[in-house]
């Protein structure tokens, strides 16, 4: 073996714990020789590159460990002392360091406003794209242009907060786009359909719609504008439910944390098939509501309110406090605690989603609700 191959071989044996006594002496001698440092360093670099396998079995355990160190693990009961306040500039951190916590929010494009102590920035265009081989691309701060290839399909970031798929390939291969809390993203599917993802949501879809059906799977909340193609019916799977679509615009709100899943039809026609129940056909302005096993259709839904999120707006008309809170927790990545019974209120009004939390919380004050914000905790008296 050449020198380099031998070094690599010894390194591999060392990593595997299988050095024979003779090899052990060789390895020790290698380490003792500074002239070999460069080659050894290079061999390690190569092995590290090759060991980057997102599907390896012990990956989750290491991720869990790192997450725990960073205090991102929300299972831990202790409000982590490892939490810290992210700030646009270190100076803001030093001056304002009153409460400490961990954050996953990266800066939105453009200038950031000065953040007052105990305030939180709004969400923004954040998402992760997972390719068929498990490789993940964080879309938050990636530049516009080609992102990746999947066979002959080209995935590009066309604008801030939007990716699209061009071309076609025979392979049946799936990608997943997912948003964190505080994130949102838009996707143009291979057939030209547009999907808007709200915070804490995901969509899994094939890179190309081969075959005679178009099927995608979502979690959380998504708004669809489906491209007309009578020859290829479009289906959305969410939980145990399937929604059959014929060239329309509709909104699905199916967060696990929400008691009721809501499918709202804006335009066109959809058929909802909840698992084990007969299907129902919806007309524009109707909303199918699934609560556990119960399903019903509601007429004359305020469609504007349902899709407000996609238009960058909070619409709180006729919402009760829990409904308002749920929207805020997802967009601002908040945890909420109630000191006493939940105040009964009916809200009204609309607010832009790009406000800091403190400005949005003014509506609570208007409704005579006392609250406090500590880091990412909202405490309601």
């Amino acid at each position, binding site marked *: 073996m050449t020198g380099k191959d031998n070094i690599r071989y010894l390194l591999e044996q060392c990593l595997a714990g299988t050095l024979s006594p003779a090899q052990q002496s060789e390895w020790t001698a290698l380490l003792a020789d500074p002239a070999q440092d460069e080659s050894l360093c290079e061999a*390690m670099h190569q092995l590290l590159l090759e060991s980057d396998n997102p599907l390896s079995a012990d990956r989750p355990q290491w991720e869990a460990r790192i997450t725990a160190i960073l205090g991102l693990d929300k299972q831990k009961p202790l409000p982590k002392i490892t939490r810290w306040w992210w700030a646009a500039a270190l100076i803001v951190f030093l001056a304002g360091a009153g409460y400490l916590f961990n954050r996953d929010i*990266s800066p939105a494009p453009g200038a950031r406003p000065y953040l007052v102590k105990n305030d939180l920035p709004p969400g923004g265009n954040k998402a992760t794209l997972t390719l068929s081989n498990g490789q993940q691309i*964080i879309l938050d701060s*990636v530049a516009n242009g080609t992102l990746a290839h999947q066979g002959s399909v080209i995935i590009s970031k066309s604008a801030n907060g939007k990716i699209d798929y061009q071309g076609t390939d025979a392979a049946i291969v799936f990608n997943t786009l997912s948003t964190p809390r505080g994130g949102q993203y838009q996707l143009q599917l291979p057939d030209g359909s547009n999907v808007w993802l709200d915070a804490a949501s995901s969509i899994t879809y094939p890179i190309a719609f081969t075959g005679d059906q178009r099927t995608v799977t979502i979690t959380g909340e998504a708004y669809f504008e489906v491209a007309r193609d009578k020859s290829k019916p479009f289906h959305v799977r969410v939980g145990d439910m399937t929604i059959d679509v014929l060239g329309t615009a509709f909104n699905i709100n199916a967060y696990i944390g929400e008691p009721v899943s809501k499918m709202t039809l804006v335009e066109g026609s959809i058929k909802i098939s909840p698992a084990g129940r007969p299907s129902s056909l919806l007309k524009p302005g109707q909303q199918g509501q699934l609560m556990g096993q119960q399903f019903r259709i509601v007429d004359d839904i305020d469609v504007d309110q349902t899709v407000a999120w996609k238009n960058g707006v909070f619409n709180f008309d006729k919402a009760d406090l829990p409904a308002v809170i749920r929207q805020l927790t997802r967009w601002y990545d908040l945890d909420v605690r109630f000191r006493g019974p939940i105040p009964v209120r009916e809200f009204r009004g609309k607010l832009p989603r790009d406000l800091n939390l403190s400005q949005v919380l003014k509506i609570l004050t208007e409704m005579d609700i006392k609250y406090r914000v500590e880091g990412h905790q909202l405490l309601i008296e």
Partner: protein
Amino acid sequence: MSSDANHIEKELFSRIAESDESAFRDLYLRYGKILFPFLQNLTKSETATDDLIQETLLRIWLHRDRLSDVEYPRAWIHRIAANLAINWLRKEAVEESTVREFGRRPGQHIDHPESTFAVQAIRTIVQQTLDAMPAQRRRIWLLHREQGMKATEIASELGISNSTVKNTLVTAARFIREQVEKAGYGLPLWFITHYF
């Protein structure tokens, strides 16, 4: 190495060069899961792996002004980790032969002199800061930090409220971080509280 990944990594690096702590944390998340198993297999020691990762992160952060010129961030990080690992292995090999010669009992803790001045300095600052703290605060900090006790456990141990313990921990952590900051080592809080 895909150019997309390299692009993302260069962006992380330039953000870290500007002291962006969230980028530094993303870096740790991204590379930690590759470095941890590699170093663990190499050193066969959890403590050593922790130390080496700490050193690697420290070097990146303390010299972050150099990061914006780096063409291949991944190679950069790998090399720092690899060099530190090689040094460790080298010392370990020397210690091993010393043990064989002088017959120390197996399982005895082997001390390695710190390889950077920064780590020593930060440890000293943390120690001094702890010494200067009010006794109760220091006690709570050490119970949490050294004994791994949770806030509720500390609260019942000392007969005080949960929220007092939590507030104290926050105050202590903040205070330590401020002192470390003043000495010129602006490290993220999670880094300090985990490694020091």
